[in-house]
């Protein structure tokens, strides 16, 4: 009797976890392994018998492809701009809107955050319409202000920046909220102590505020990096990678290889590249979490 109880006790937690592990196994662990395997094969969708092991051929061919190089450059630029601009803007907005809880500040927070919870489909459609060069709102405003108009999404010079504009506009509110919460968690008396220590506003900000919220800054940088490297929806909806590959991103490249060229091998190889980047960011993030104890 007691032995059965003990076995029950031992097996019970595993039973509780089993369904969740089935999900993770089927849709996370297995796909990760499968992507790596696929990247070493030349897969033939129509005649599976012709599928064969090709070693690093997919990688070599992919790295030599203009479109892949272009995708990597675009994604890197996109990531860098996102990190710098979103970080700066959201910090600025957080300091500005979060220092006092007043009605107007709350309305601002509500407005700034709104784009984050609206589907990228809606947002992209609105901006494509507003950025339309011939009758769009943006050019109408520019003309009214006597400024030169732009081709926005339809020129390879401005397309990436136009997409970035939308991405920044959509995401800055979320990070603003995170920073407001972070700023509010800094004890008030520390700022008072700094005031008594004759620290100016600027010095207080970079000597006290920034170090105090550095865990959140780090979190935001990691999330922004991962989020930027996996960008596809905005691009697929607004430019479809064009014009002339000016907005092709890493994931858009994967999508093209798999669904337009049915070249699963190269798509998988690019997927492995994305996985490595995400992996590095994940390791960085969790190793910093263990250090964070110092600040408590």
């Amino acid at each position, binding site marked *: 009797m007691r032995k059965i109880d003990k076995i029950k006790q031992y097996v019970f937690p595993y039973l509780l976890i089993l369904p969740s592990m089935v999900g993770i196994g089927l849709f996370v662990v297995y796909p990760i392994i499968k992507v790596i395997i696929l990247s070493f094969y030349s897969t033939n969708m129509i005649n599976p018998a012709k599928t064969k092991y090709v070693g690093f051929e997919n990688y070599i061919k992919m790295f030599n492809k203009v479109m892949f190089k272009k995708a990597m450059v675009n994604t890197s630029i996109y990531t860098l701009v996102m990190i710098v601009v979103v970080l700066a803007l959201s910090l600025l907005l957080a300091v500005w809107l979060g220092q006092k809880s007043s009605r107007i500040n709350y309305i601002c927070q509500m407005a700034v955050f709104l784009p984050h919870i609206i589907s990228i489909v809606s947002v992209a459609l609105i901006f494509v319409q507003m950025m339309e060069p011939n009758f769009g709102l943006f050019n109408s405003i520019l003309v009214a202000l006597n400024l030169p108009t732009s081709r926005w999404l339809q020129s390879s010079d401005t397309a990436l920046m136009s997409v970035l504009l939308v991405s920044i506009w959509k995401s800055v509110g979320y990070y603003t909220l995170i920073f407001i919460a972070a700023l509010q968690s800094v004890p008030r008396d520390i700022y008072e102590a700094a005031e008594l220590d004759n620290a100016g506003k600027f010095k207080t900000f970079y000597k006290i505020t920034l170090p105090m919220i550095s865990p959140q800054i780090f979190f935001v940088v990691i999330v922004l990096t991962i989020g930027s490297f996996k960008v596809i929806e905005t691009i697929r909806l607004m430019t479809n990678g064009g014009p002339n590959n000016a907005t092709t991103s890493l994931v858009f490249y994967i999508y093209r290889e798999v669904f337009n060229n049915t070249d699963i091998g190269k798509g998988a190889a690019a997927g492995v590249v994305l996985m490595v980047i995400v992996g590095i960011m994940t390791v960085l993030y969790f190793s910093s979490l263990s250090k964070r104890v110092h*600040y408590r």
Partner: protein
Amino acid sequence: MAKIEFRNVTKAFDKNVVIKDLNLEIEDGSFTVLVGPSGCGKTTLLRMIAGIGPQTSGQVLIDGVDVSNVPPGKRKVAMVFQNYAIYPTMTVKENIEFGLKNNKVPKEQREKLINETASKVGLTEYLNRKPSQLSGGQRQRVALARAMVKNPSVFLMDEPLSNLDAKLRVQMRVELIELHNKLKTTFVYVTHDQVEAMSMADTIVLMNEGKIQQKASPEVMYKDPDNLFAARFIGSPPMNVCNLDHKGNKFGFRPERVDITDEYVNDTAFIMEGVVVTREMLGHETIYSVRNEEGITVTVKRLDDKWRMDQKVFVSVKDIKDIYFFGKDGQRIRENDNDYAYCINQLRGVKNEEN
């Protein structure tokens, strides 16, 4: 080297006025303790001196100079916060150094000052540690060192010992008194603990509901309270207070001035018969509550512990000087006041009624 003056100071948070038209002088070189129940405005006053919670109207003067428009960092004051407010991201050394750096003190002098201060408070070994690696007492010392190193003319302390355990608190109390004796600068200390106030202060400022109830030395505070609030707040257990008449006049006496006897005693200022209802044996002293038939309870503090529960006893106060009278407004009625004679007569009446 600084005298602090408040002139007609008012402080309001939004529409809520917490201090109205307050006037107060804190003498140069004194160890002044602001004491009172929570919400009485004592911390608000302290923050006005520091400049981190400026007054809504009125003036704050340090050494005769109106500092209302002087930023906190330029007032030559230093403050020890209740939760220490140590910068968590800086080392102990950087914490102490921060204010010096901001005041552009040259490097060699900084080093010298830090080392001196650190050895004074016993932090030399911990200079390169982060605050998270320190104990509560050590953090307290960092906060103290950070204040001391600036050589301020006023030391402000906001309940600095409330987060320490009882033993450490007593030890730090002694150290702060010694520090004051050594530095001879003005100390302004805020606490809600009357024991702390009595043991450390040379001047106590007792506050309630934004008003100063009494400003006096600990001795005067204890022996000659100005009003009912001061009489009840200072001393533990608090003063016994009974109704003197039906008009709201009251009289009171301290538990440590009460005698307990088996039998009726003649020639007392006050005497009451009752039963011992509680008895707390504290070691060197014992606290009894004695209740009479009308439900009046008198607290007694005695060195002897021979009285038992449910025992029938007489409690008495011998000397009329140990009895304090208060008017219906709560103000003290002293010997030279007009109503004093009336009070004495009423008290005799009370005594006679008892029998």
